[in-house]
Structures are given as structure tokens and as C-alpha cells.
């Protein structure tokens, strides 16, 4: 039997002897990973909203009065292009704006079909060189003749960035805390197994077993706990997230004009992250728990 095969056999045999403790560990770590998973999906979505809004609105949108003449429209364009700090200006016809909105609404785009009249006005997208220019232009553009409204989302973007940062920090703190607690749980579970095999370990050491040979089955035990927890936690996060997006996903799309991250895509990434965390927790926990015994 290969060394890995031997170690895995030993690890499963240990699990069999301490079923209750291993089960409790998996349950506790799963619960922690689930919390982590929910933080993660919230973080990813807010980040995506922020990125999309920032991408869409790093320009100032200048809406024109609906019955403007072409002369007035050209005049507005000239004024905008002549403003210091403006990079370039593009004209967005009202029909094109409607099509763009339909695409963004995705599956709900059909709601914009068959409108009696296009409610969107013609507009200019003004691309500026820096944020300060954008701010002053947004304030002054309202007074230009033929301009109906100016939409500039910097405040929203800043707020979203703050929320995103807050969730990011919260996730990191929660992750740090939960990882430490998980390591302690795994370490205690493995320690119990080590206690049960104390005599065997002593004999192994007298027989000339290397530290890694003694450690390996316990590390595998820890890894199995981590992987099982990761798998279950990912499954549960998927179920919860999927349900939530089914319930409020379309509302978010309609209100914020952005789509939520698809559950399938998120789950694959979450599984990879959880597996890495779970395996690391398992390895750390088991190494900590057996260290003292190896020093004897």
C-alpha cells in the first residue's frame, strides 16, 4: 500500500473511532463557513455593483430638453467640448439609450417593449480627465441652454465604495475570527484522537518512525474535516443564495439596473476558496494538536 493510502486508511479508522467528535467538528466548521460564505456573496455583489456603476458613470450624463433644435444641441456640444478638462463628448440618441437599457435589464428587458413613446431624452456623455473637473462641470452644466438635467453619480459611487469597503473589512475580521475558532475546534478533535493513540504513537517513535509518519494520519484527518465542511458549507450557501436571488434578484435588476452575480459562478469560486481554507484549517489544527506529543 502506498504511503498516502496507508495514511488515509489510518485517518478513516481514527474517524471511525471518534465519529461523534468528528461530526461535531464538521458541523461547527460548516456553520462558520456558511457565515463566511454569506459575507462573501454580499461582498462580491456589492463590489460588482460598485464596479458597474463606476464603469457606467465615470462620465457625466447631460440630458437635453426633449424639443431642442439641432442648433441648440450642437451649441451644447460645443460648449461642453470647450470646457477645460473635458476629454471628449459623445452624443447618445434616445433610441440607442432605450436599447442599452433593455440590454442591461436582461431577462426583464421585455418590459420596455411596446412603450407608447420613448421616455428617454437625447443626451451627451461627457468624459472628463479628472474627478475635480467632473464635479465643477456637473454643477455648471445645468445652466447651459438646452440642458434638462445632469446626472453625476460620484456620491453614489463613493457611498457604494464605502459599503463595499465596510463589507470587505467585516468579512476579513469575521474570516480571521472564524478561522481561528475553526483551527481550535479541529485541534481539539485531533487531540482527542491523539490521546486515544498515545500508546501507539509512543511505540511508533521507539520503532524509529519519523515525525511526519506519525503526523500524516492526523493531518489527513484534519484535511478530511476541512473538506467535508467546505463541501457542505458551499452547498448550503448555494441553496440560500439561489433562493434569495430568485426572490429579490429581479427587483435589484429593476431598481439598480445591474444584475446579481449568478449562483453557479459564485459557487464554483466559493468551493475553491472554502476548500483552501478548510484544508489549511485542517493542517494547522492537526499540526498544533500533535506537536506536544512529538516533543515527548
Amino acid at each position: 500500500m502506498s504511503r498516502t493510502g496507508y495514511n488515509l486508511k489510518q485517518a478513516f479508522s481514527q474517524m471511525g473511532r471518534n465519529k461523534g467528535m468528528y461530526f461535531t467538528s464538521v458541523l461547527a466548521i460548516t456553520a462558520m463557513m456558511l457565515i463566511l460564505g454569506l459575507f462573501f456573496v454580499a461582498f462580491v455583489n456589492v463590489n460588482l455593483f460598485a464596479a458597474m456603476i463606476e464603469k457606467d458613470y465615470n462620465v457625466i450624463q447631460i440630458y437635453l430638453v426633449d424639443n431642442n433644435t439641432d442648433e441648440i444641441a450642437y451649441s451644447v456640444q460645443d460648449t461642453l467640448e470647450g470646457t477645460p478638462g473635458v476629454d471628449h463628448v459623445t452624443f447618445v440618441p434616445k433610441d440607442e439609450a432605450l436599447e442599452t437599457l433593455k440590454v442591461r435589464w436582461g431577462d426583464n428587458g421585455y418590459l420596455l417593449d411596446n412603450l407608447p413613446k420613448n421616455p428617454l431624452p437625447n443626451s451627451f456623455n461627457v468624459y472628463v480627465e479628472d474627478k475635480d473637473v467632473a464635479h465643477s462641470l456637473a454643477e455648471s452644466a445645468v445652466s447651459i441652454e438646452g440642458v434638462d438635467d445632469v446626472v453625476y453619480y460620484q456620491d453614489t459611487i463613493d457611498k457604494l465604495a464605502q459599503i463595499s469597503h465596510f463589507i470587505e473589512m467585516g468579512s476579513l475580521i469575521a474570516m480571521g475570527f472564524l478561522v481561528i475558532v475553526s483551527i481550535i475546534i479541529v485541534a481539539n478533535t485531533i487531540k482527542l484522537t491523539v490521546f486515544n493513540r498515545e500508546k501507539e504513537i509512543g511505540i511508533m517513535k521507539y520503532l524509529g518512525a519519523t515525525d511526519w509518519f506519525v503526523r500524516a494520519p492526523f493531518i489527513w484527518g484534519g484535511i478530511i474535516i476541512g473538506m467535508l465542511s467546505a463541501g457542505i458549507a458551499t452547498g448550503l450557501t448555494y441553496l440560500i443564495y439561489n433562493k434569495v436571488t430568485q426572490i429579490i434578484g429581479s427587483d435589484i435588476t429593476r431598481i439598480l439596473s445591474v444584475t446579481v452575480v449568478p449562483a453557479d459562478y459564485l459557487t464554483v469560486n466559493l468551493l475553491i476558496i472554502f476548500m483552501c481554507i478548510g484544508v489549511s484549517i485542517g493542517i494547522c489544527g492537526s499540526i498544533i494538536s500533535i506537536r506536544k506529543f512529538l516533543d515527548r
Partner: protein
Amino acid sequence: MIVFNNVTKKYGSNIGLLDASVHINRGDFVFLVGPSGAGKTTFIKLILKEIEPDKGRIILAGKDITHIGRREVPEIRQKIGMVFQDFRLLEKKTVYENVAFAMEVLHKSRREIKERVPFVLDLVDIKDKANRYPDELSAGEQQRVGIARALVNKPRVLICDEPTGNLDPVTAMDIMELLEKINIRGTTILMVTHAKDIVNKMNKRVVAIDQGRIVRDDQEGKYSRHSAAESDILAPGLSALAGTGVENMTNDERKTMYFASPQTAVSFADDGDEGDVASMVDEYLNGGEDVYE
């Protein structure tokens, strides 16, 4: 095979071993004797690299192991077979599995294990009980398994820590015969013991330690310095042997009885004057008491 050159080991202010020098050759059979706390365990722990010496030099199988790294310790221990007083068998493994376990630990192949384990079990005469569990065996049989486990990886040295300590005298002698057989096959044996009878009977090299010092190193030695003039007087308890005429027996007759009925036997040593001892024994026996050393 094992060389101690002026080795000193202290535990704070307590002396474990003091300036000890011993040279154990390949194929030697050496008894390490001495009172409790004399330094025997320190001696063994130093060989097994469980502890580091403060001074001196230790050589095992030609390799200086005085200050080796932690990673080299397993390699050292693989050259040593360890036999314990309490056998230390794994209860949930059969005899075969206990011995095979020692080979699994060293990553030996299945084929090697299948070949070697039955051979060693045969050598220690326990092959017929290969599928039994330790709690189904007598103490002597368990020790045989312990010896088989120690031997299975072909160690250069067998260190036996009171291997007969939990055995009755007859079984103890069986185990000693087995160890002698192993020694004749070329394995160096270092045996820590308090069993005076065994040491005196075996006529092997005796290294005596007292208060951390090597106080004696005799080829074909006895347990104590005056053992040559010593008689082992065996005085079975009166209650157990009443009416056997033990008080009229010679020392040799009493020894015979001792081995025939070990569970009731007691022993003590005297200064060689048989008459004095016999009368002392009589006095105790007549007083209705058992006599202990």
C-alpha cells in the same frame, strides 16, 4: 557497538550519569544493574536520544550520536530494538499485526512483511498464536511478541528494560533463554534488570551503576559485588509449604522447590554462611511468616 566516553548527564542538581565510560562490543550480552535512581534509565534514554548528554561522547554502531539533530533520531532508533517490562502491545491488533506494525512504520513492503513476520514469530516460538489478540495470551507469550516486534526490523542492538519484571521466575527463565538464543545469532543485548537470580544464573557481563557512576564492569559477573560468596536461600512461606520439610532442605533442594513452585517462593541473600541463613529461615518460618529479600 555502544560506546560511552566520560558521559555526564545532570537534571538540575541531581546526577543522572557522572563521567560514565562503557564499551559494549558487537555481540555482547550485558546486564545493566543498580538500585532505583542509580542512572540506568538515563543510560538507556541517552542511547535512544530521548535526552542529550551534558558532557562526553556517545557512539552507536560506529556513529557519533552525542549531538545529532532531531531528524536523525528515527534513523538511530531503527538500529535499536526495544523490549519493555509492560510489553506495550497494541490491544486491538493481533500478534501478527503487532509485529507487522513495526515494519509498516518503516515503510516496508507487503511482501517483506509477509516474509519476515512469520519468520520472527517462529523464532520467538509464538507462530501458532499469530491471530490471537494480546489479552488472549499469557504474560510470557506477550513478552515473546514484544521481543518479536523489537527484532523484526533486524536491529543491531536489543535494549531490554526489565523484560522479566512482570513474569514469574519460570517464564522469566524461558524469556532469558530466548534472549540468549537471539544473542547467539549476533544481536547485541543490553538488559536493564533487578532480577538478581537471573543475572547470577546467566553468567554474562554485568555493568553496575550507582548514583550515576559506573561502579563495576565484570565479564561473567554477578548481580552484586559479593555474589561469588553469596547463596540464594529460598524460603517458601510456611502457610504454602507447611509439612514439606523445607526447614530441613539444603540450599539446592530449596532452589529446586523454588522453581517448582515459584508463586509461593521468596528469597534473600546472605554472606555465604549457609548455617546462619538456614537458622534464620527456620526462625522466620517457625514464627509463621513468609521471608522476603
